[in-house]
């Protein structure tokens, strides 16, 4: 693998790792592991832990996928590996 491509791949892996940390924290962290602690806080009629489990985690997932897609497009351009337009 050329140095260019391998540093592209390393940056991609770092980005994936960061995104997966967020993915884990909002769902498994806030929604399951620390749900009781968060439930002492209220968000309107929602207990916060319950909200993360049934609403919040899903919103964050959507944002994460778009963020990743956006960041990768920039990364593609930075390393000059974008697809050629057909």
């Amino acid at each position: 693998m050329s140095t260019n491509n391998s540093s592209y791949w390393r940056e991609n892996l770092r980005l994936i790792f960061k995104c997966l940390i967020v993915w884990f924290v909002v769902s498994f962290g806030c929604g399951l592991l620390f749900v009781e602690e968060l439930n002492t806080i209220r968000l309107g009629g929602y207990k916060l832990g319950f909200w993360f489990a049934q609403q919040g985690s899903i919103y964050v997932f959507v944002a994460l996928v778009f963020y990743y897609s956006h960041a990768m497009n920039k990364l593609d351009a930075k390393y000059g590996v974008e697809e050629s337009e057909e």
Partner: protein
Amino acid sequence: MDLKTLTYIAVFSSFGLYFAIAWWARASSTSEFYAAGGHVGPVANGMAIGADWMSAASFISMAGLISFLGYGGSVFLMGWTGGYVLLAMLLAPYLRKHGKFTVPEFIGDRYYSKAARIVAVACLIIASLTYIIGQMKGVGVAFSRFLEVDYGLGLGIGMGVVWVYAVMGGMKGITYTQIAQYCVLIFAYTVPAVFISLHLTGNPIPQLGLGSTMADGSGVYLLDKLDLVVTDLGFKEYTTAKLGNGINMFAYTLSLMIGTAGLPHVIMRFFTVPSVKAARASAGYALVFIALLYTVAPAVGAMARMNLMNTIEPSPGQNLVYDERPQWFKDWEKTGLLEFEDKNGDGKIQYTADAETNEMIKVDRDIMVLANPAIANLPNWVIALVAAGGLAAALSTAAGLLLAISSSISHDLMKGILTPNISEKNELLSSRIVMTLAILVSGYLGLNPPGFAAGTVALAFGLAASSIFPALMMGIFSKKISGHAAVAGMCSGIGVTMLYVFQHKGIMFIPGTAFLGDMEANWFFGISPNAFGVVGAIVNFTVAFIVSKITGPAPKEIQQLVENFRIPSGAGAAHHH
């Protein structure tokens, strides 16, 4: 107009729409049949993925499950959406870059092994067929309840409809019908939810209504009231009730996530987009369209529970008199999904958590979404819409699964292995024949569900999680994992998972409780088989790693192949090499 006429109009006009689209989008090449020619834009593909993914189980069963599980139902919400994050980052862009038609084809190329490809085909067929039985049953039930035709006849009509547009249009026809079906199903799902939210809380947005105060002027939050109502009757508190223990919920959520990312009929949809960039974006759009339903579902669940409780006990101590029960109650009693027994002989309905005094001896979870509009006294056209939406959800998923099956048989087994010299025209013909056969088999299985029908979802997700997901992920993120390692990993992953699921087959299969691949029966015994996919996946990873260490790394040209699909440049549309 009466309900039945309205329902006929809603259902048959939606069918007419699907046929018209299928005629317009006929497939003329294998590329169109398997991958819609690779011309589907990311938003359209996202919508099609939404319909493909959201099955009768999402549409009908999920809110009902949440309704009775409360907080415990969160595993489905997080599990079935979180998988798309994995799909978008770990699989979809690279599979699209590789540019083939099917998941087994990718596995066969990456692991330079026909054996790996055949194992993948086997996993795919078992996972897809088990999944499809639930869809066929959903179609049969929706017909028999709403159009009052025989279950078998309803199933037959459903099979006929899928046959016409799936066989004629292949992936191209399916994609465009799925877009229409997504619109039908999301409209049918949200309209009643908006009405009910408005009625209960005064807020038309269900996601906000669920966190609002009751509209009765009491100033009490809906969820607090619901907690109070259910705990008074001895049920677990709605917002904190766990599903088994914490470990089970964790494993369950993770299994559903990796299972979702490994389901071939969903992955296949990423072969239809024109570029790697579009594959990443369409995962995002798919999740938006899925989230629209998945964030409404908890509101539907909680509000349906509230309405049910209010109907049976309008004010504390004032229970509903059985003879004055509403029409929907009588309708569902006829189906056997709702049963009442006057244990204390007072002619009133008591609904409690105590089996001794509880008189609602059966409240099937699946009726909650279907009965919800009637329970909330919504107009008939809304109920008719729900019937059309449920059918759209079931048909769109069935079509996607059928395509996954037929392409893996005609493209992977026949073209790839048995008869490599088959012409494109004959391959197209054979995939249509295979699809017809698959419809007949799944229809037969829907009519005579095999013993494992109740565990179908466990099996499909377990297989995808323990075999396909790890094989794909290792193939992309490790250059060195060898073909032998992948085959050994997949076989041991499936082996462990199937063993565990089948071990519970006798226990889990309770005749009559299974409707749309019901999952409740699994939860009574230790770790649920549904939560076991993640264990199978760990076994798969471990075995593959060890075998790869022993047998040595993959050859240089395969390492080159991996390097090539890791970068986007140089991708073309899905095609033959």
